[in-house]
């Protein structure tokens, strides 16, 4: 199948190095301590953060740092064909773990010993790149909750199809079976915290694809920063400062 047309356009009309449209909104769930909606094209996720709060299960309490927990759920209607068993499958468990580890790396857990932070991400629409979208949503929700972090974490994926490196794969490109590199970075510290790839790639091409995904992460970081600044300005206005 042809994923990049001779004119250099992808199936959804993007250029190979083009990202999908981003949209983010803070405070989508009023009861949570922090929450955000994050959209990458047709992929749409909600993240809610509860905490820091008392550890619910005493046996899990850590005396030197906060306990971070994460759960990833997909809505029954989020995919093209209706999902029948959305909860607790292997894929969700794996993604929950990935998100937890990524977020744990940037939260200053040592400042909140003996407490717990819950991150819940809910996929409303899945069109490829849910992993990245969830991490981006979780970052925003954590920032909205005012939880101390080293830096923002942002994530983006890139792939390689028809001898072309493609940024931010959608579902069709993702299921093409080609390599899919998901990268998560701390943009200010310029460090990679998450790196996953399936399928195989020659070394030199991998370098390019990863570079591309990193550039994507930086673009997401700029956008997220704008959203946060805009939100802070609004809060400032409301307080009448």
């Amino acid at each position, binding site marked *: 199948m042809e994923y990049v047309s001779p004119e250099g356009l992808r199936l959804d009309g993007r250029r190979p190095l083009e990202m999908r449209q981003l949209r983010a909104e803070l405070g989508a769930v009023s009861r949570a301590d922090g929450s955000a909606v994050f959209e990458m094209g047709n992929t749409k996720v909600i993240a809610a953060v509860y905490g820091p709060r008392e550890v619910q299960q005493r046996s899990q309490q850590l005396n030197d740092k906060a306990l971070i927990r994460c*759960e990833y759920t997909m809505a029954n209607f989020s995919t093209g064909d209706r999902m029948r068993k959305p*909860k607790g499958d292997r894929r969700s468990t794996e993604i929950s773990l990935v998100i937890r580890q990524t977020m744990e790396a940037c939260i200053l857990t040592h400042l909140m010993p003996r407490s717990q932070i819950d991150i819940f991400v809910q996929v409303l629409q899945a069109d490829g790149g849910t992993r990245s979208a969830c991490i981006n949503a979780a970052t925003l929700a954590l920032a909205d909750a005012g939880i101390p972090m080293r830096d923002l974490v942002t994530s983006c994926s890139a792939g390689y199809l028809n001898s072309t490196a493609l940024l931010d794969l959608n579902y069709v490109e993702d299921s093409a079976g080609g390599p899919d590199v998901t990268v998560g970075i701390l943009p200010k510290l310029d460090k990679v915290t998450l790196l996953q790839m399936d399928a195989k790639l020659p070394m030199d091409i991998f370098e390019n694809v990863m570079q591309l995904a990193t550039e994507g992460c930086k673009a997401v970081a700029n956008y997220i920063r704008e959203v946060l600044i805009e939100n802070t300005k609004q809060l400032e206005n409301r307080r009448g400062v």
Partner: protein
Amino acid sequence: MVGLSVGEKHFIQGGIAQDLRTDGRKRLTYRPISVETGANGSARVKMGKTEVIASVKAELGRPNSSAPDKGKVSIYIDCSPTAAPQYEGRGGEELSMELSAALRQCLLGGKTGAGAGINLSSLSIVDGKVCWDLYIDGLVINIDGNILDALGAAIKAALSNTGIPKVNVASTAPSDEQPEVDVSDEEFLQFDTTAVPVIVTLTKVGRHYIVDATSEEESEMSSAVSVSVNRQGLICGLTKRGGAGLDPSVVLDMISVGKHVSEQLMNKLDSEIAAAEATMEEE
């Protein structure tokens, strides 16, 4: 769930007794309702802070042998852990089951499908062979009381923008084989939702009952009755929740009040759905 002090409880109960609730509403007033309809067969409804999403998906299936001329509808509700941490993992299952069962009772009628708010006969394609299976999925995003009414409204809104593809049946198939069907990509039949009822939950707090209770008010309830009423003012389903018993005369009184309130809610919803669809078309 909701941690309230004795003073707060007293304040809520006293307010309800005086027909002035903590957020300034009267006993039978709803919070502002907003309806947003999505691409095809989905809707988001907000009632105050309560927020739910409903979606409708259709698949081709085989009708039940007991009702060969009817399609099938199933309703599944899921409580997202974003709404509250206790719905994490399997924690939301109990509530999900309760809500799904209540909605089935309110919308789908009896076992045979008689008296259903959704016209099951319209989902039949070839009697006894092919029919549409309608899957209605609800997702609770944020909880601040009265989830059932919000889900009922969201399902109604989602159904009203559901297009069921037109199906052409090859007439040559022998009667004992599964006929070949051709699902059209372009022609859609709009789903008739005029018969879909709305759900009104009356929550009894002290000696009075209120509509559209918030979480705080629900924590003070003794029992709640959910009535689903259609446009003709007929009652399609009824469920009672909460432990305390109710005097039969009170139940009848609650039903008649519910019926009265449902007219306002139905009109309000219809205008909101129409407005949501109008903005969809503008885009």
